[in-house]
């Protein structure tokens, strides 16, 4: 770093920007992969259980979502839309 740089206003480094952006991308990708394996399998199982014990529903009437809200808190959200006339 040259002497002149000391007089320039401080900026966040380009590398730390890059790191921050990549961490978000990588976390998203890894969540996506997990989803495709575990959550889709779970979705299928739950669907079968509902059909077996309760009512026949379409496969798109169910959605399972996993959200990481904070570091130590994840929310598993299960949504089942039942048909109006039973």
């Amino acid at each position, binding site marked *: 770093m*040259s002497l002149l740089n000391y007089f320039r206003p401080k900026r966040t480094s380009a590398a730390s920007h890059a790191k921050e952006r990549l*961490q978000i991308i990588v976390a998203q*990708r890894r969540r996506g992969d997990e989803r495709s394996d575990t959550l889709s399998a779970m979705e299928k199982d739950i669907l079968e259980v509902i059909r077996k014990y309760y009512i026949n529903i379409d496969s798109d009437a169910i959605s399972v979502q996993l959200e990481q809200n904070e570091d130590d808190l994840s929310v598993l959200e299960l949504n089942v839309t039942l048909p109006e006339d039973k």
Partner: protein
Amino acid sequence: MARIIVVTSGKGGVGKTTSSAAIGTGLALKGFKTVIIDFDIGLRNLDLIMGVERRVVYDFVNVINGDSNLNQTMIKDKRVDGLYILPASQTRDKDALTREGVERVLNELSETFDYIICDSPAGIEQGALMALYFADEAIVVTNPEVSSVRDSDRILGILASKSKRAEEGKDAVKEHLLLTRYNPGRVQRGDMLSVEDVCEILAVKMIGVIPESQAVLRASNVGEPVILDEQSDAGQAYLDTIERLLGNQVEYRFIEEEKKGIFKRLFGG
């Protein structure tokens, strides 16, 4: 039984072929019988980097199709004992690589070789998938730059889901990160991702850091794997990488900027 190592990256131009050539040569220097296979069908380059382009008669696709056998096709390196190159085809398209064909060739090589290095093409299509499918270990070549790191992450995902080991539920492919074209000066100035940054983002164990070096272009110009240039920084960094690949602890070199004199420090340059 040979150990199958894929050298892969997702992104092109990050140093896969340079690294495959260096690592294959380095393992042979250590006394292991090694073959490097070029999986880049249609765009072969390993033969050039290894300086054997004028000795290519048959290629990988010929072997798969049964037009030639391995002994006729593999090119024996004249500099290092126990080093062989299996060149890619220049003409056919990449769908020529069938899973059964590749498996048959790898099985045959496994009987006599210690290491099989698979030099993957860029991208995530057939050629790249075939190169990594049978791997025991993967060396993911990454530049300290956003698009390369993202593509490496993508490849790590594919290794974890689409390799033979993943499909059969065996032990996962052993992943290593090889950081290439590293420029310690730019890292220090905050313009480039550091070794620690990339490790933290990808959460994979580092196996080597190769500095951005004049020696790499020089080596490719003359068709000599850069690891044979033992005077060069890149050559030495690859030699260290081989030690780590063989399980030895080696200090990292060339990851700090060279000390500059007081004059340069004050006035830049």
